[in-house]
C-alpha cells in the first residue's frame, strides 16, 4: 500500500476538561485500510474516540478519530458475548443489549465513551471492588500495530500485548474491534440505598461495611474542614429484579455556551455542597432507572462548559488501603485548605489491582474532583502528586493533564515493562500523545 495523505481537517482539540488544547490534524478513517494508510503517512498518531478523557491523553498533532468505526459485529443474546468495532459507545451498547437482559460488566461514569477508549483507559466503575476493571471482561481485541499488522490479543493470545493495551492509553496500537462478556440483568433499574457519613472516617467505615454491595460510590464534600472533613453521602446499589427491561432515554439538556468561570467559586460550591448534604436522606431506599443511576451527568450535555473557557482539570488519585483513611484525611485537608475543590467530588473504594501494566486501580480509596484551571491549581496538583506518591498511591492517567514525568515513573513502576512491550510490537515512534511525551514515554 502506498503512503498517501488522508482527508484531514485541522482544528483545535482538547480532552473533556478543555485543558490543554492542541492544534491537530483530525483524520476519521472509514476502514482498516484507511487506518493503515494514515499510519504509513503520518510520523506518529494516537487514536481518539469521544474525546472524553479529561486531559491530553488523546491529544496529538495527528489523531485518528474512530467515529465512523462504530458498528456492531455480533451479539449472542443467549450468552451475552458482544463483538463490536472500537468506536461504538457504551450508550449505544446499552440501547441494544439491555432489552435482551444484558448489561455492561463495568461502566465508567459517562456512557459517552467508546469501547476503544474504555479499554485503553481500563475504566472502572462503582463495582470495582467486586468486578475489577473493564479490561477484565474483555474476551479479545483486534488491533492495528505500528508495523501495519492486524493482530488478535486476549488474556491467552499475545498476553503481554493484552496487558499493555488494557490501560495502555492507546500507546500500543489502534484498537479496531473488541469482544466483551456482558452480565445478565433482570431489570433496567437499580435499587439504591443512601447512607450519610459525617466524616471521611465514617465514609470509609461505611464502604467497608457495604463491601458486599455490587455498586458503591460516595459524593464527598471537599470544602468542609474540621470535624466534618470529608463528609459524604454513600450510595450503594443492586440490580433490581423488577421494573422491566425498557431503557428510559431522555434527551439531554445542553449547556450551550461556556459560562463565566467566576460563577463557580468557593462560595457557590460551598452552597451547593451544603444543599446536597442537607437534601440527602439517611438510609433511604429508592429504585432508579439504570441511566440516571450510572450516568447522572449524561443528562446535561456539555456540562464541561460550566467551568468556563479556560477549562478544568479532573484530579483522581488512589491511596493504598493500609493507612488509607489517615492518608486520605491528609490529602483532603490540603485540598480543603486550598479552597479550590469543586462541587463534583467522588469517593470510592477499590478492590485489588489487576495485571495490566498501566491500569490505575490498586486496592484502597480513590477520590476524584474537578479544579478550574489556574497556575495556582497546577502548583497544588503537583504538591498533591508528591503527597500521593509518598503514600504509595497514583493518579489516573485518563484524567491527568499536568503530572510530571518523575511522578509517573515512580507511581507506575511497570512503565519499563510497558515500554518493552511497545518496543516488541512496533509501537514506539508510531503511537504517541501529548500526555505520553509529557510523561517521558518513547
Amino acid at each position, binding site marked *: 500500500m502506498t503512503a498517501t495523505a488522508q*482527508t*484531514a*481537517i485541522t*482544528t483545535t482539540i482538547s480532552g473533556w476538561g478543555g485543558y490543554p488544547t492542541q492544534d491537530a490534524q483530525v483524520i*476519521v478513517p*472509514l*476502514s482498516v485500510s484507511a487506518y493503515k494508510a494514515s499510519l504509513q503517512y503520518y510520523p506518529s498518531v494516537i487514536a481518539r474516540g469521544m474525546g472524553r478523557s479529561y486531559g491530553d491523553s488523546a491529544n496529538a498533532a495527528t489523531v485518528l478519530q474512530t467515529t*465512523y468505526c462504530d*458498528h*456492531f*459485529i*455480533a*451479539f449472542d443474546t443467549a450468552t451475552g458475548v458482544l463483538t*463490536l468495532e472500537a468506536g461504538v459507545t457504551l450508550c449505544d451498547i446499552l*440501547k*441494544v443489549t439491555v432489552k435482551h437482559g444484558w448489561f455492561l460488566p463495568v461502566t465508567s461514569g459517562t456512557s459517552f465513551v467508546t469501547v476503544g477508549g474504555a479499554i485503553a483507559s481500563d475504566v472502572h466503575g462503582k463495582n470495582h471492588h467486586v468486578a475489577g476493571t473493564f479490561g477484565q471482561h474483555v474476551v479479545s481485541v483486534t488491533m492495528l500495530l505500528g508495523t501495519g499488522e492486524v493482530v488478535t490479543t486476549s488474556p491467552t493470545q499475545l498476553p503481554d500485548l493484552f496487558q499493555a493495551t488494557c490501560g495502555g492509553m492507546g500507546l500500543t496500537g489502534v484498537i479496531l474491534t473488541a469482544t466483551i462478556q456482558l452480565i445478565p440483568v433482570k431489570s433496567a433499574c437499580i435499587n439504591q440505598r443512601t447512607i450519610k457519613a459525617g466524616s471521611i472516617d465514617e465514609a470509609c467505615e461505611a464502604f467497608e461495611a457495604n463491601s458486599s454491595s455490587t455498586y458503591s460510590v460516595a459524593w464527598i464534600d471537599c470544602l468542609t474542614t474540621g470535624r466534618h472533613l470529608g463528609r459524604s453521602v454513600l450510595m450503594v446499589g443492586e440490580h433490581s429484579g423488577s421494573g422491566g427491561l425498557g431503557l428510559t432515554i431522555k434527551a439531554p439538556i445542553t449547556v450551550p455556551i461556556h459560562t463565566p468561570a467566576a460563577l463557580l467559586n468557593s462560595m457557590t460550591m460551598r452552597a451547593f455542597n451544603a444543599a446536597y448534604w442537607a437534601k440527602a436522606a439517611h438510609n433511604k431506599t429508592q429504585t432508579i432507572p439504570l441511566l440516571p443511576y450510572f450516568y447522572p451527568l449524561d443528562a446535561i450535555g456539555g456540562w464541561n462548559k460550566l467551568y468556563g473557557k479556560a477549562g478544568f482539570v479532573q484530579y483522581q488519585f488512589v491511596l493504598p488501603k493500609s493507612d488509607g483513611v489517615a492518608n486520605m484525611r491528609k490529602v483532603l485537608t490540603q485540598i480543603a485548605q486550598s479552597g479550590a475543590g469543586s462541587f463534583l467530588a467522588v469517593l470510592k473504594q477499590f478492590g485489588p489491582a489487576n495485571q495490566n501494566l498501566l491500569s490505575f486501580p490498586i486496592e484502597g480509596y480513590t477520590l476524584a474532583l474537578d479544579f478550574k484551571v489556574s497556575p495556582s491549581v497546577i502548583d497544588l496538583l503537583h504538591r498533591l502528586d508528591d503527597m500521593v506518591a509518598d503514600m504509595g498511591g497514583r493518579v489516573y492517567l485518563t484524567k491527568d493533564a499536568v503530572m510530571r514525568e518523575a511522578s509517573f515513573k515512580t507511581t507506575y513502576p511497570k512503565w519499563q515493562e510497558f515500554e518493552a512491550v511497545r518496543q516488541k510490537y512496533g509501537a514506539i515512534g508510531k503511537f504517541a500523545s501529548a500526555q505520553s511525551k509529557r510523561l517521558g514515554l518513547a
Partner: protein
Amino acid sequence: MTKILVIGATSAIAEHCARIWAARGDALYLVARNEERLKTIAADLKVRGAKETHSHCIDLNDIGSHAAMLDAAEAAMGGIDTVLIAHGTLSNQKACEQSVEETLAEINTNALSTISLLTHIANRFESKQAGTIAVISSVAGDRGRASNYVYGSAKAMVTAFTSGLRQRLYKSNVAVVTIKPGFVDTSMTASFKKGLLWAKPALVAAKIVRAIDKRKDEVYVPAFWWAVMAVIRVIPQKVFRRISL
C-alpha cells in the same frame, strides 16, 4: 414491521436512518457499491434489531441493472413498503469545470441514476397503490452557486422530478418525500471545516425518518435551512452574480 429498501446504504445519512429502522425491528434491503462496507453495515443493523437484512452490491451508474435489483429486493422481503434513495457523490466542482466527462459523470450519478430508479419504483408503487418513496436531494439544488453548481444542478433535477412525481402519484396513495439536507458532518464532507450550520448524521436521520413516517412532501433538515434557502432564492440575479457562495 416495514419492508424498507435503502439505496446508497453506505452513505452516512442512509446508514443512520437504517439504524433507527433496525431498532424498530424493520426489514432492510441494503444496496451499495462497496461490498466490504455493506457487509459491515448489514451485520451491524442485524445486531441493532433489524428483523432481516439483505445486502446487494451494485454500481448504481449501471442503469440497466436497476430493474433486476428491485425484483431481487421484492423477492427477498416479500415486497417493498418504503424506499430511501440516498446514494450520491459530492462533486469536485473545480475538476468538473475542466472536464465535460467529469461533469456528466457527476450528473449521471447524482441525477440520472436516481431518475431511473424513481421511474421503476413509481410504476411498481403506482400499480399496487401503496408505498413511500423518499429521496435525498439537497439544499444545493435550490439555487446554482459558483462553488458547487454541478452537484447543485443535479440535485435541482431530482427536486423538480420528485415534485412532479408527487403530483402524479398523489391519486395512487404513494407518498414522495423530497429531503433537502444542509451541511451534514459525514465522510463525504470530511475535509470541510465545520461550523455552526453543520449537523450530525444521527440528528439528520432522526428528522428524515420522522418526515417519512408522516409522509411529508418536502423537508429541509435541519428545518432552519428552509429560511436560509428562502433568503438565498430571493436575492436578485444582479446581486447574486457578484457574491461568492
